[in-house]
């Protein structure tokens, strides 16, 4: 197969991007540096401004203020069709009147590539997404997953500086979603193309990104590697949005917090009554008839077992343990809960 390394991949630098719709600040002072060849995910709940941010990068939406610089060039006012980027949309963006191959060749046709050449190139790209045998099918004859593959091939065909994807997998069923997610990541690595991937699915973001930018209410909450975001969330919002969290009451005292009788370091100093955020895998259980917790439910999940209990003050607590360790516990049994000695985040007490 032809070498398809993208030589045009460019860095992106967003500075102070703001966009309001009436009273709604869809994007609010977004600063973000994206390195050349990197896959970065914009992650956040629905309505937090991810699509708007992506469309501003694409030029499909204007900024009220701020600049978009790509490959060192300010393109804030450049129209979408002159930006040399391409985009994969959530769904239904293939041209219904064109076959898969003609869809892929569309951008090449606009660039004046000869029919025979663009046909060959379209087939190569369809091979890349394992759809060359469906080259002459129309979008209506393809499944949702196949359509998104064609859309991806179409976006890659023009060798863009930047690839933008707006929840391209969200309309697909779970199995196809996971498969296509891995394919996108593999292709992106192989082509070395700068990619911005919008998703509200944390698992998707964690599994395929070099870095994740977590957004909420139009603002950037935190930007970092999946491991950083997961294990060292900068704000309670990020902590709660990624993975799950226990909410345990505690008393903060400067740099530490006392929670269920244990002392833990604080990521951000605080004082007084607080709610401490603790991951299920940071909860430790020891068999102890005089312990502080009663186990209510044990559910086996393969390598991990989830143990749910109730602290004596009534707080529900969830622990994820390696299944081998969990074997010694029984529903209704008494245990003592402690926590891994890691810095924790707190919220105002409920």
């Amino acid at each position: 197969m032809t070498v398809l390394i993208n030589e045009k991949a460019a860095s992106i630098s967003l500075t102070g991007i703001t966009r309001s719709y009436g009273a709604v600040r869809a994007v609010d002072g977004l600063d973000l540096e994206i390195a050349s060849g990197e896959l970065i995910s914009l992650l956040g709940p629905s309505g937090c401004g991810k699509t708007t941010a992506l469309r501003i990068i694409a030029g499909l939406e204007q900024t009220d203020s701020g600049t978009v610089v790509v490959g060192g060039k300010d393109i804030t006012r450049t129209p979408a069709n002159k930006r040399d980027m391409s985009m994969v949309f959530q769904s239904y963006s293939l041209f219904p009147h064109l076959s898969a191959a003609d869809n892929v060749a569309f951008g090449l046709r606009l660039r004046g590539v000869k029919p025979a050449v663009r046909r060959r190139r379209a087939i190569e790209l369809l091979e890349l997404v394992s759809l060359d045998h469906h080259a002459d099918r129309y979008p209506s004859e393809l499944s949702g997953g196949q359509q998104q593959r064609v859309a991806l091939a179409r976006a890659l065909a023009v060798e863009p500086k930047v690839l933008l994807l707006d929840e391209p997998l969200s309309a697909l069923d779970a199995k196809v979603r996971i498969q296509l997610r891995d394919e996108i990541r593999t292709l992106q690595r192989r082509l070395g193309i700068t990619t911005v991937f919008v998703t509200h699915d944390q698992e998707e973001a964690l599994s395929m990104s070099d870095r994740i930018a977590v957004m909420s209410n139009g603002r950037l909450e935190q930007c970092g590697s999946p491991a950083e975001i997961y294990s060292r969330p900068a704000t309670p919002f990020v902590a709660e949005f990624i993975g799950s969290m226990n909410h345990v009451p505690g008393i903060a005292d400067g740099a530490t917090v006392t929670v269920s009788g244990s002392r833990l370091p604080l990521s951000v100093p605080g004082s007084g009554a607080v709610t401490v955020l603790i991951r299920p895998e940071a909860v430790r259980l020891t068999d102890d008839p005089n312990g502080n917790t009663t186990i209510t439910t044990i559910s086996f999940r393969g390598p991990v077992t989830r143990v749910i209990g109730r602290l004596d003050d009534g707080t529900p607590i969830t622990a994820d343990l390696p299944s081998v360790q969990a074997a010694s516990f029984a529903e209704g049994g008494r245990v003592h809960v402690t926590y891994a000695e890691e810095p924790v985040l707190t919220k105002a007490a409920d």
Partner: protein
Amino acid sequence: MTRRKVFGGVFLALVGLYFLLPLAAAIEFSLRDVGDTHSLEVWKTLFQQDGFVTNLLTSLKLALGTVALTLLIMVPTVTLIHLRMPQFRRTMEAICVLPLAIPAVVLANGVFVAFQGAPPWLNGTPVILCLEYVVLSLPFTYRALDAGLSAIPVVALVEASRTLGGGWATALLRVVVPNLRTAILNVSILAAALALGEFTLASLLLMDTLPVWTVSAGQSNGAVATAASMLILIVSWVLLLVMSVLSRRRSRTPRRSR
């Protein structure tokens, strides 16, 4: 056969009779000859009638002009409304229905007054009638285009085309138009049919078109007038047929439901 099917069949036959009986009667009338015989005599003389061919050509040109102008103006306009100001779709629809509510006499008088100082190539020529027909067909053409555009994800398609490097012309001609084949065909048929058959306005504006000629011919010779109106009908049908065949041959898209 189920009862429903029988019912449907009978109903269809009745509706068919309702439409076809008058047509058959008219054709029969145009074929009558002296005594109780039938012949093609009237149809043969039709083309030799004074002014018939000229007026037929005028009407055909009018139809062509109306279709071309309607498509040229309406396709970009309605597309723009869908892309940029979807909130005005209702307003536009209301405006486009207006020609149905305004009596032809009022319209004709309005045209007289408004175009009093217009240049000679426009005033008192079929060009002005063509402009009128574009407006008169709006209630139908707007809806047909609006429905066609509502059936495709036009915003997504245009944005996809733009991110792939296409400008607005590309989006319109290579993305929107090919996906509006059916709607454009419907618009063409509606506008052509209206332009071919319209009488009141043409007559009030003192234009010579086939319907106007037909009515005046009918005052001296009923059979000739009947044959002429049948011809208008047949021409419309043939146009319709040609257009639908053309559109089917060119559109390779299999129209399947998802």
